[in-house]
């Protein structure tokens, strides 16, 4: 706790998750060595959340620059491809594309996989999540509750359930605990992020009925102290 107070004083714009075992000077030293990250995204979870979760999990300070829709016209021209999220590093270079940013951060902070093959497997799983986001888009933005449930059930039946069955098979084959290799990767975090979106939380109570290992994996990621602390304190948003 005192470690975080010290670094909060020094880096007042940064949101910090400190490892409670670090003493003050270790925390200060590691905060100074960190690259300066500024993540630009709307004040929603959406396509920015995976990178936020990776950074919080890894205990890496960053400026979580959130803006509302009305401010977008002012931000947009500064972004390399007129889209967000964008990661600005050390105030000088910018990276666009949500999964590229998340992969870069995962690689920088030991969450990408242990070798080329594992890294590719993690990439593959995150690409699957990209496809699931696409499938869920219409349901996510549907305002009518009854229609939303209908749309959700359809996507769940046609796309999510078949996918989860496959993932469960691969997960069990890999030892049942992590999607890739023997440790947590950003792939596990990506599945956690998708399966805890507001629509999933609202309507997806039975989504893991046939996939107990994946259910446990999602719970385990959610129970990580750094993730838990962030999730308890992050802004409550619609998406």
């Amino acid at each position, binding site marked *: 706790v005192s470690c975080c107070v010290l670094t909060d004083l020094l880096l007042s714009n940064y949101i910090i998750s400190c490892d409670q075992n670090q003493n003050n000077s270790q925390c200060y030293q590691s905060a100074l060595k960190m690259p300066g990250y500024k993540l630009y995204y709307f004040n929603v979870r959406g396509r920015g959340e995976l990178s936020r979760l990776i950074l919080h999990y890894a205990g890496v300070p960053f400026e979580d620059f959130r803006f509302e829709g009305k401010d977008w016209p002012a931000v947009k021209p500064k972004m390399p491809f007129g889209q967000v999220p964008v990661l600005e590093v050390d105030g000088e270079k910018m990276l666009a594309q949500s999964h*590229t940013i998340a992969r870069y951060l995962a690689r920088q902070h030991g969450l990408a996989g242990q070798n080329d093959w594992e890294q590719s497997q993690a990439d*593959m799983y995150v690409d699957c999540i990209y496809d699931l986001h696409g499938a869920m888009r219409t349901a996510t933005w549907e305002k009518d509750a009854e229609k939303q449930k209908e749309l959700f059930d359809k996507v769940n039946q046609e796309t999510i359930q078949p996918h989860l069955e*496959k993932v469960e098979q*691969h997960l069990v084959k890999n030892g049942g605990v992590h999607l890739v290799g023997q440790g947590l990767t950003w792939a596990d975090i990506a599945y956690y992020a998708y399966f805890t979106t507001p629509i999933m939380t609202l309507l997806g109570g039975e989504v893991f009925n046939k996939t107990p290992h994946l259910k446990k994996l999602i719970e385990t990621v959610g129970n990580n102290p750094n993730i838990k602390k962030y999730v308890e304190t992050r802004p409550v948003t619609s998406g």
Partner: protein
Amino acid sequence: MPVYKLHYFKNPRQGRAELSRLILSQAGVEFQDIRFSHCEWPAIKPTTPFGHVPILEVDGRVLAQSNTIARYLAKKHGLAGKDEWEQAQADMYADNIHDLLNAVAVPFVEKDPVKKKEMYQHFMKVTIAPHVAAVEKQLKKNNTGYLVGNELTWADLAYYAYFSDFLEVKFGSAFLKGAPRLKSLIDRVKALPNVQKWTAYRDSTYPEDDK
């Protein structure tokens, strides 16, 4: 050298496997280019990791997802970027193309020819034109003639595949009028000996897609 088997549909001739074929061809790496018909797909689908293609078999292990396969091959064969920042930039450009492929799929599958034409026009104006302008700006900033760093990466191959081998063929090159650097890049990639060898082989061996 590992044994690569790339599995994809016969149609489309290029589709989501083409970037990987270009990467392997440019790198001068042999691969088995396995193409199957849509009627064979129901039997093949359950054997894939997630029910989709392309998939890449590497000495018996299987990788899915088109960009993941392309990135893996690019990394293994010197086309991914020289350091982690360059690799991330190449990833970023490949993701741009992935989004554009998804966006063009909508008019591509439209059956009504009048609606289809309208949708393509809208797509070129609202999606392609701003993106071309943004990429031209980045090319100017990088100032090496390449999207990333100072040599060819899979990002340049991805832009060539989409902008030249697909859009230019379909719409002509008017949309590149205000983007001389992007036009120069895709012309240079088109002229690479290994790229020419591959496209000549491909076009003479496999039938063109139905329009």
